[in-house]
């Protein structure tokens, strides 16, 4: 039985979230195609059409650099995320490309044990399905709030 597009997207979303939450950040760039856009912004910026972002990458290399900086360069207290994802809405299908939108809630667990809601928002995604593999051409992470507590180390 072959998966429907919906199932393929849902599975890709789940794997993406597990990858970050399980601290397998080195695998995170592999959810993207080589030429890609990954951006974290706020709902206010998105609504006003402002391009500036909290994180902006337009290559898989930049995603890898984000991971190596987190591992080797940047200083932040040990922390982890727990992503809770909504059901993906398939907005548009065109050949091998699929546009979808998925809501998320991310709790952040810091080393002293506090768990707080760190971010809520939605993923605006452009997936490309190649040889049965689903990867992102574009992921715009739109955070509902414009306020970020302390710092944003791990990707959303």
């Amino acid at each position, binding site marked *: 039985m072959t998966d429907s597009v919906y199932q393929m997207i849902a599975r890709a979303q789940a794997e993406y979230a597990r990858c970050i939450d399980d601290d397998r950040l080195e695998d995170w760039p592999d959810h993207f195609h080589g030429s890609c856009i990954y951006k*974290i*912004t*706020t709902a*206010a*910026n998105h609504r006003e059409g*402002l*391009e*500036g*972002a*909290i*994180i*902006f*990458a*337009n*290559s898989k*290399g*930049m995603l*890898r*650099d*984000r991971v*190596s*900086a987190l591992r*080797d*360069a*940047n*200083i*932040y*207290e040990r922390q982890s995320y727990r992503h809770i994802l909504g059901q993906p809405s398939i907005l548009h299908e065109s050949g091998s490309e699929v546009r979808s939108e998925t809501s998320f809630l991310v709790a952040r667990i810091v080393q002293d044990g506090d768990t707080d809601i760190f971010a809520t928002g939605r993923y605006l995604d452009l997936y490309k399905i190649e040889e049965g593999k689903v990867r992102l051409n574009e992921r715009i992470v739109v955070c509902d709030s*414009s*306020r*970020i*507590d*302390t*710092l*944003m*180390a791990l990707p959303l």
Partner: protein
Amino acid sequence: MLHETHELRPAETLTRVPYWVFQTAETYRQEQERIFQGPSWHYLALDVELPEAGDFRTTRIGDTPVVVTRDNDGEIYAFENRCAHRGALICLDSHGKGKKDFSCVYHAWTYDRQGNLKGIAFKDGVKGKGGMPESFRMEDHGPRKLRIAILHGLIFGSFSEEVPPIEEYLGDEISSRIERVLGGRKPVVLGRVTQVLPNNWKLYMENVKDSYHASILHLFFTTFELNRLSQKGAIIVDESGGHHVSYSAIDTAAEKDAEYAKQQLRSESQYKLADPSLLQGFDEYHDGVTLQILSVFPTFVLQQIQNAIAVRQIVPRAIDKTDLNWTYLGFADDTPEQRLTRLKQNNLVGPAGYISMEDGCVGGFVQRGIAGASEQEAILEMGGSGAQSSESRVTEASVRGFWKAYRSQMGM
């Protein structure tokens, strides 16, 4: 939270900072009165954020909410966001356009764009009954108005009649360094975000002024030669101590020196980028300066890190909580390539910035570290005890400068 009153010891030295200044409610209260409502200039918004009459933005000076507007005469006005009647916010939106007047939702007391009280609902009562007394004069009541100064597109406001004109407040050296970045140019807002810092506002301002930490805490900075203490560069501290510039320029002729390696600092590593286009900027200022961090007392920062330009507004929210409002900038004449460069280099700054995320947490490390040590003191002796400009950036002169201006305004 500590409630007791402390006496700052005589300021014969700027090299010690007692930790209670970051902890007590009384200090926070006095700062609101003597600094935020005192003789200081406070960044409010950019001129380009209010291009037309009827445009408005709300912001804060310390705890005090403020409305900034542009009126038909083309001038910028600002007034306290507090209804003269019962004190409710007059304007609830963060920004907007085409506003003819501001009407308080509580009892519809209405203000013009300059903050003048122009209307009171049921002022004359209903059917000759009720209403305000005849003696009540609307022109005698209204939210406090701010003095406004605009410098190279930056709008500053002050509650004080005593504060000197902005050019005099800043001095020539600081003003000219603002002009270097913004003079004659039309900025474009690329984005905004607020970073909520878990610490007292002064710990962030100390951090901004601390050129000593930059190449030690921020590995990313150092390894890519965006900033090394051994580079060409200097710090400028103005006469008051409160404003500073720290800058550096890549000295291509100089060989890599071994000072860092000798000291075995964490900063020396073999970190390489998979996509080095992040750091491939364009020559914007033709003076070789790749980094210029400028602060205006008490709570404004203008940043140029390569082509990442931003203004930062610091707003205290509580003794141990501070909003850091980032506004990322480009310019109207940017080419698409230049714009893309800025978007990429903004990865260096902000809440997820390669070279600024640590600044978001290090203030919290201090706030937590000093929790039981109100009577202990921080040491600021790097580079001596003065608060003067310096060719060396291995100095805490501009941090001492902050405390010089702070003590002066607080009457300590």
